[in-house]
């Protein structure tokens, strides 16, 4: 029995420093939903498109990191205070740049991403037309 418990105890001891960051309870609205279902739905949609800044490619809705919890708290209290999701998104983009938002934006550096597929489609259509025109 003791030999089985020992690794568990050791694992718990080793996990101490990792847990230190969690020593404070999460922010009030990190994991608590808003009472108003419509507002909570708005908050949830927004949280799924905001990047957790301390994790690898996770949204703040998906992350257990304390900072993601604090960001969810900000999103929920701001929505509850009447801010629109887009206002909150721009508040964060103002601080962290486009990096914080998962929603694709057409901008000075990103427009080719949207333009290239359209151009390729047009080119492909042109090639097909020429081929079929020749055959017909």
């Amino acid at each position, binding site marked *: 029995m003791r030999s089985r418990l020992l690794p568990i105890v050791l694992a718990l001891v080793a996990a101490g*420093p990792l847990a*230190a*960051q969690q*020593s*404070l309870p999460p*922010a009030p609205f990190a994991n608590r939903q808003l009472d108003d279902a419509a507002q909570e739905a708005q908050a949830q949609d927004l949280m799924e498109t905001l990047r957790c*800044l*301390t994790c690898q490619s996770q949204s703040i809705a998906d992350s257990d990191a*304390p*900072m993601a919890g*604090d*960001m969810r*708290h*900000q999103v929920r209290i701001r929505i509850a205070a009447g801010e629109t999701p887009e206002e909150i998104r721009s508040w*964060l*983009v*103002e*601080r*962290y*740049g486009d*990096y*914080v938002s998962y929603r694709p934006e057409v901008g000075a550096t990103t427009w080719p991403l949207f333009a290239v597929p359209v151009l390729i489609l047009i080119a492909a259509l042109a090639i097909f037309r020429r081929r079929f025109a020749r055959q017909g």
Partner: protein
Amino acid sequence: MSWRLWIPLLAFAGFLGLAAYQLTQPRDEVVESRMVGKALPYFDLEPATSGLPGAASDDFKDGKPRLLNIWASWCLPCIAEAPQLERLREEGATIVGVAIRDRPEDVAQFLERHGNPYAAIGSDDLSEVQLGIGSSGVPETFVITGTGKIAYQHIGDIRERDVPILLEKLREAAE
């Protein structure tokens, strides 16, 4: 066969080459704050431990540039940077700390163990100042001008070589 037949294959090979090259490049983990050059957002934080005042954005508007150090007692690189903060203090820098998600007894223990370079430490339990200033981790250090403008951001722990840079930025902020 026309030579043009090879164009799609070459384009695809070029794409593969680009992807392979990008995969070998180290990922840029650093998220820079866009608040540099802007005014420090409003905050008024309770003291993070007894014996030191708390921190408020209005304290930064008395004409004297300061360092704003975002840190936490649970953060390991913060221990590494403690001696450098002490050096900055000896060189005349005023350092205001913001402790992220921290407990007063842990802050006190940290200061006892690693020294106290801080003139004041505010307690930021909800990371509100951190989010407001565009910081994405601990530790980070900001140079704030005497009028409360964010002049410079240092991401990560302060190493020996960063000390003269921060002192220079403080001098620039005083002008």
